[in-house]
Each structure stands twice: as structure tokens, then as C-alpha cells.
């Protein structure tokens, strides 16, 4: 009998453990509401316990989640940074670095489960869902606080950018305004050495509409390929299309998510159109088919996923270019263009010349490209905002966190270039996630102490100036609610991801494939989407 009892005890123990451990979640789900109170009490307990130690008010501990890779000697730099932060605003910063691959999932999980944090990096891309999280109340409303606690951050950021972080006119995050500006102007980059070799007049491409530009580039690629047959004229991949992913180059602007059907033209900003039905798209498909047959693009470009190896091997002859001022602008402004190179290459391997072809626009999503939000559950919203202001305006602190200490983590070599020391603290170029690298006096980035550095400052000066003058996207501040046409969107997306790579690579004959593509979109419900987008846009325009 006693033995049997022991057996039961054994079993009971195992059962309790196993039920506990296999993650039976039923109870957890209902207790979401009271846990936050528990958290509040526990953190106020913390404060009390530290209060006994010092006579002055204890520093507030702020947790800040951001995206980053592994960083060496992180604790040393954070120790130094916290000395500054404690002195300035009587707080300490607990910066938590989450790998880029899991950041979005992790933050959404923390928000959905009501986990505690003070600040976090947020954006409208990569699954971080800034708009969704903000509209369901995850982030604190900063509209009334920002003038008091972060006045300088507010005034440094161009007015147009704030539209991107507003929902119904309220501000839910502070934009991380960066050194490379916010206004977009796109264009092309060409291999400088090849352009010289075959005598290509790349300057003529300046300011041309996309189709005309492609036609101008055509003979250049042909001539260059004849001399270097192992190179690739034009890059195509399954994840990126020169049409579907580049509305600005076609003088259009997406309404809602970029790759969904429904864009507007800049010339006609109140009318939603199906971008795939435009004559531009039809002609673009024809050109790509021609290029495919002529061997300008990789034959397997429609299924290729990873573009990095080709770029690194310096095989690309012509490509899309995002940065500006371009080579012509720079020359006109007296800025050196020696450092310009093709994507993922250095100038000595693949020097480049660039021309921009589009208008200068602050895209609708520019404000939410990178921003810092404060959790609505935070117990220290004002303090967190003070921290944002400090990170954005205290150059010493910002440079310390984003670059480490001079002489230990980086140094300037004999030519005045910045050199990071291997194995030491290195922030992996994620400085844009924690604050503004913009400063009116160029004091928040490690510029090389030579001509290159000066050239960079000058070209950034051009960008900053234009940011204040650029057109703001006609749909800035408009947020498309996709719920009424969810099914149609999913159906259309399936068609688009299937057909667009093939059409953009020219792997299929557009004479047959394009009508088929449009037909399938119709069946998938593209007209409902356009109608819904138009209705929401009209309502928004009317309310303005």
C-alpha cells in the first residue's frame, strides 16, 4: 500500500511538472489585465529600495529595445554612456539589442502579451507594423509632450516627416532623422570605367522618364557586354522589380503597401489607378523581353533570390541608384565624386557615375522609416522622451554609443579616414535605430578628416536643404485600412508574386503573359481593391 502511495506521489510530481512545462497557456491568456499592475508595483518597489541608498532622487531605469547584431565590449560603452545620461537627466539606459531577423516578431510578441518596456525602435516595414501597433494603443501619444520634453528634436526634423508618424493627427513616435536625409530622388548608376570605354553619354539620362532612360541605356549595355561578355547588364531578381518596387521612378506613388495594386500619379494625385494596366508597364515588359532575348539580364533572373554575389563580384553594368546628389549635381556644387561605387563594391573595383531622373519627394512612409516610440505601458513616459531628446542632441553621448571611444574602438589613420579596430566595440552601423544622425553642424557622424569627409558634408548639406523644400507625397498621412478587401489583396498578391518576377525579367513573352496577368488580377478582385482605395482616399481628402 505504502509503495503504491509512493508511486502516486511520483506520478503526481511528474504530472504537475509536465503540465507546467509543456506550456499550457490557457491561464496566461486571461491574466493579461492584472499583470501590468503587478509589474507597476514591482517596479515601484525597485524605486523604493534604491531610494533608501541615496539622498537625491534615484535614477530612473529605462529599457530601450532596438535592432542590432552582436556587439563586442558592449558593457564598457554602456557604462560610460550611463554616466552621461545619469548626470544629464538622472536616468540610466538599458539598451537591449535584438537580432534583426527576430526583432519584429519579438516586439510584436512583447506588445501583444503586454510585456514591459519603455522605448523601442519602430518602423512601418519589415513586419514591425508601426501603424497597426500605434492605432491599437501600444505606443504613447506624444503630441502634447513633445514640445516640452523634446523641443530640439522636434524643430530639427522637417515638418513633412512628422506626417509619417501621425495617426488621426496625433504623434506616436519620434522620427530618427538621418544624415542622408529623407527626401527621395532616384536614378541610375553606371560603371564609370565601362562608360568611358564604350563612350556612353550617361549625362543624357539625367531627368529622363524611366522608359526613355531604359532606351538610352540599351546601346550602352549592348556595347559593354560585347567587350565583357561575363558581366551582367541589368540586375533582375525574384524579390525586386524595377516597376513594381519603384513607383517614384515612374512618377507614381503607392496608396497603402507598395506592391499591392492601386497607385496614384503625381500628376493626378486624387485618382487611384491599377499600375499594371498603365501603358508604361506594358512597354516596360516589352523592353525587358527584348533585353532578356539579347542576354542583358540573367536568364534565371526571374527565380534568383540572392543578388549579393553578383554585386560583390562587380559584375553589374547598370543599376538603379537611390542616393543623390548625383555625379552631375556634385560636380556642379564642387563636390568630389571619387568615392562613388556600384552597390556592394568599393570604388577601386567598380567605380560608378550616377544620374538622378525623378522629382524630389518626401515619400509617405519617410517618417516611419525609422522612429523611436514609447510604450503606452511605460511608467516613465516623460523621462523616456527626455532620453530621446538627449540621444538626439548630445553629440558626445550619441557618438559614444554609435562608434565607441576614439583610440580604443576606432581611430583616424594617416589619411584621415575612420578605421574601426577589429574585435573592439562596433555598433554595426545601426546608429539610425537609436536617434538622429542629422545635425546642422555635422557633428554627429564620424566624417573622415580629409577631402572625402568634406565632400560628404557638402553633399549632405545639399540633401538637408532639399528636405526642407521637397514636395511632400500627396498621400502623406493617409493610412489605408486593408480589412474590407483582405481576401482580394491576398489573391492579388499571390498572382503578383507569381507573375511579376517573370515579366520583369522578360522570361515570358508579354504579348501572351501580360493580358493573362491582367485577366488573373481581375478574377482575383483587383477592381474591388482599387474601388476601396479610392473610397478611403476620397474620404480622407474630404476630411482634410
Amino acid at each position, binding site marked *: 500500500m505504502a509503495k503504491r502511495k509512493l508511486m502516486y506521489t511520483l*506520478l503526481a510530481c511528474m504530472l504537475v511538472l509536465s503540465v507546467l512545462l509543456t506550456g499550457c497557456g490557457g491561464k496566461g491568456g486571461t491574466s493579461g489585465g492584472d499583470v501590468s499592475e503587478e509589474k507597476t508595483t514591482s517596479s515601484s518597489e525597485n524605486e523604493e529600495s534604491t531610494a533608501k541608498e541615496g539622498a537625491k532622487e534615484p535614477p530612473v531605469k529605462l529599457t530601450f529595445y532596438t535592432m542590432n547584431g552582436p556587439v563586442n565590449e558592449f558593457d564598457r560603452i554602456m557604462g560610460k554612456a550611463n554616466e552621461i545620461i545619469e548626470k544629464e537627466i538622472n536616468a540610466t539606459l538599458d539598451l537591449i539589442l535584438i537580432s534583426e531577423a527576430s526583432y519584429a516578431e519579438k516586439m510584436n510578441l512583447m506588445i501583444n*502579451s503586454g510585456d514591459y518596456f519603455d522605448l523601442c525602435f519602430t518602423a512601418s516595414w519589415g513586419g514591425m507594423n508601426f501603424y497597426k501597433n500605434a492605432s491599437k494603443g501600444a505606443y504613447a501619444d506624444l503630441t502634447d509632450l513633445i514640445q516640452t520634453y523634446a523641443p530640439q528634436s522636434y524643430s530639427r526634423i522637417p515638418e513633412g516627416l512628422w506626417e509619417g508618424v501621425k495617426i488621426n493627427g496625433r504623434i506616436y513616435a519620434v522620427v530618427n532623422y538621418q544624415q542622408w536625409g529623407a527626401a527621395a530622388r532616384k536614378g541610375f548608376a553606371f560603371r564609370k570605367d565601362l562608360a568611358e570605354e564604350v563612350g556612353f553619354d550617361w549625362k543624357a539620362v539625367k531627368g529622363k522618364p524611366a522608359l526613355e532612360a531604359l532606351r538610352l541605356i540599351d546601346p550602352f549595355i549592348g556595347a559593354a557586354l560585347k567587350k565583357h561578355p561575363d558581366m551582367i547588364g541589368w540586375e533582375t531578381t525574384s524579390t525586386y522589380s524595377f516597376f513594381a518596387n519603384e513607383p517614384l521612378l515612374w512618377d507614381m506613388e503607392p496608396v497603402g503597401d507598395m506592391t499591392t495594386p492601386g497607385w496614384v500619379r503625381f500628376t493626378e494625385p486624387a485618382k487611384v489607378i491599377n499600375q499594371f494596366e498603365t501603358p508604361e508597364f506594358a512597354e516596360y515588359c516589352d523592353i525587358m523581353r527584348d533585353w532578356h532575348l539579347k542576354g542583358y539580364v540573367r536568364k534565371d533572373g526571374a527565380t534568383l533570390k540572392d543578388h549579393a554575389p553578383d554585386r560583390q563580384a562587380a559584375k553589374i553594368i547598370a543599376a538603379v541608384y537611390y542616393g543623390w546628389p548625383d555625379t552631375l549635381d556634385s560636380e556642379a556644387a564642387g563636390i568630389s565624386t571619387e568615392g562613388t561605387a556600384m552597390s556592394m563594391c568599393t570604388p577601386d573595383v567598380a567605380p560608378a557615375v550616377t544620374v538622378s531622373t525623378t522629382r524630389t519627394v518626401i515619400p509617405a512612409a519617410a517618417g516611419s522609416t525609422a522612429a523611436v516610440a514609447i510604450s503606452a505601458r511605460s511608467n516613465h513616459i516623460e523621462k523616456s522622451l527626455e532620453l530621446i531628446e538627449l540621444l538626439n542632441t548630445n553629440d558626445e553621448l550619441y557618438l559614444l554609443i554609435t562608434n565607441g571611444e576614439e583610440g580604443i574602438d576606432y581611430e583616424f589613420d594617416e589619411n584621415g579616414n575612420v578605421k574601426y579596430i577589429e574585435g573592439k566595440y562596433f555598433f554595426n552601423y545601426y546608429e539610425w535605430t537609436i536617434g538622429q544622425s542629422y545635425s546642422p553642424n555635422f557633428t554627429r557622424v564620424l566624417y573622415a578628416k580629409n577631402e572625402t569627409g568634406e565632400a560628404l558634408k557638402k553633399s549632405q548639406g545639399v540633401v538637408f536643404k532639399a528636405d526642407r523644400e521637397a514636395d511632400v507625397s500627396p498621400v502623406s498621412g493617409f493610412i489605408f485600412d486593408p480589412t474590407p478587401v483582405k481576401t482580394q489583396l491576398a489573391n492579388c498578391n499571390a498572382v503578383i508574386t507569381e507573375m511579376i518576377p517573370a515579366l520583369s525579367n522578360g522570361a515570358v513573352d508579354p504579348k501572351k503573359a501580360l493580358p493573362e496577368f491582367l485577366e488573373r488580377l481581375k478574377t482575383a478582385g483587383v477592381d474591388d481593391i482599387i474601388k476601396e482605395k479610392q473610397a478611403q482616399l476620397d474620404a480622407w481628402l474630404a476630411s482634410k
Partner: protein
Amino acid sequence: MKVAVQKLTFSQIVTHVIFIMLCLICIVPLLLVLSISLTNERSLLLDGYRFIPNIWSIKAYKYVFSGASSVINAYSVTIFVTFVGTVLHLLITSMLSYALSRREVTLRNIISLFVYIPVLFNGGLVPTYILLTRTLKLKNTIWVLIIVYLVSAIHVLIMKNFFKSIPDSLIESARIDGSGEFRTFFQIVIPLSIPSIATIGLFVSIAYWNDWITCSLYIERQNLYTLQFLLQSLMNNIGYLQANVQQASRSAEKLLAELPSEGARMATCVLSIGPIILLYPFLQKYVVRGLIIGAVKG
């Protein structure tokens, strides 16, 4: 040697050839991975993959170890988690399934049901997260890496069926001789169950070794990163840094352009196979026997 060759019949030769091919299929990719990880990055881009590198380079390994303390630290975290986790998993699973296999436990069918329900209906990610972080307060502790995998219903099922094959009379006679339940379990049942324990031990230790998702969700401190998660983060970071070469080259920083990407990918692969591959030969003889258990009894 010569005699042995003459003895081979045609069918034996065919069998040998087939199995040699099979072995090659398994080994050749590993060798290729090893050789890629030792090839210079530029040569990889220009010449493609080769079994014997044109230009040798250990830069990939240098890069992975450039934060040396963190890789070594991650190794020790992973080894600790794998070892402690496997031992605890085996202990709990075997005790649970032993109890479930004994007829004198009256409610064993109902209890089994509780064990198997989560196979079909689990709590979902958000409730699990709330349970682990809020109720159990396991975030940022090494135990979270161990605890989430302590019991697996499938393993309980396999073990239970194995324990059923142990004759009742054996346990009864132990009982008559005055052996307590624990003593019967540890000194009579466990030694008889080595094959099944070894099989499950192998599965579990590999699962612990390869687990990175738990780490990505519940661990926020670098000093508790597991090897797989650290290597994955390093790989992502290389990808990110390379996309930003442009920015780097503006400040004329050459370092990034020469980052080993393909090489480092393979180097992390080699490192992550690491010591766990040594486990298999030691357990192999038990595993072969253990696999039959499920087949016959399951």
C-alpha cells in the same frame, strides 16, 4: 587482400558500390562546406565553389571569432543546456512514462490523455510567452532554454511502450525482495531500458543543441546567447553590413568590402556541427536497437 577481393560475388560488389555512393553523398557536401569555409572570399565569388581552394584563407573563422569571448561563451551555454537539458528530460520522461506504463496506477489512461492533448492543441505563442515571462519569470535566465523542452509527448509514448515490454514478473519479484519503487526504477528498469533511453537521449540532445528559437524569444542578453543563435545573428549581421558597404566606402572604410560572407556562412556551419557530431558514434549501437522498439511495439 587479394583473397578478399576474389571472394566478392557480383551482388556483393553491387551492394558495396551502392553503399559507397551513399556514403559519398553524405560526406562530400560536408567536405565542400569545410573547403568553402577555408577559401578566400574573392576567389569564391570569381571561381565558384571548389573542393580544393584556389586561395586559402582563414578569414571567415577569424571573423566569427573576432568577438572571441562571445563564441566561446555561447559554446559553454549550449553545452550546459544540452547536457543538463538532456539529463533532466530523460529523467522526467522516463519517470512519467514508467508510471503511466504500470497497471497499478488506476488513472493512468486519463493522465495519458492530459499528456497527449497538447500534441493536438497547444497554447499558442502569445500565451506561452506570457506564461514564461510573467508567471514563471524565466526571461533572460538559462533555465528557459532547458525548461521549454523538458517533456515531449512523443517521447513519453515511445518510452511507455518500451516499459510495457518489461515483464511484470520481474518488477513483482523485485518488490517481493523488498526493493522500493525508486530502487526498482533506477536499478532494474533503467538498466534494461538503455536502448530506448539512448535513442531518445540522442534526439533530445540534438534538439537542444540546434534550438535557437527559444533563445531568440526569451533571451536578450548576449552572455546567454546559445551557439546557434549567436551564429545566426552573426550571419544576419554580415548580410546587413554588406548592404551598407556603400555607406562605409563613403568614409573610405575598406574593412567591410572584404567581409567574408559565403565563407563565414560555411564556417558557422562547421562550428555549429561541432561536438554534437561526436555524440552519434558513441550512441550508435544503442540507437539501432532503440529504433526497433518503436517499430515493433508502437
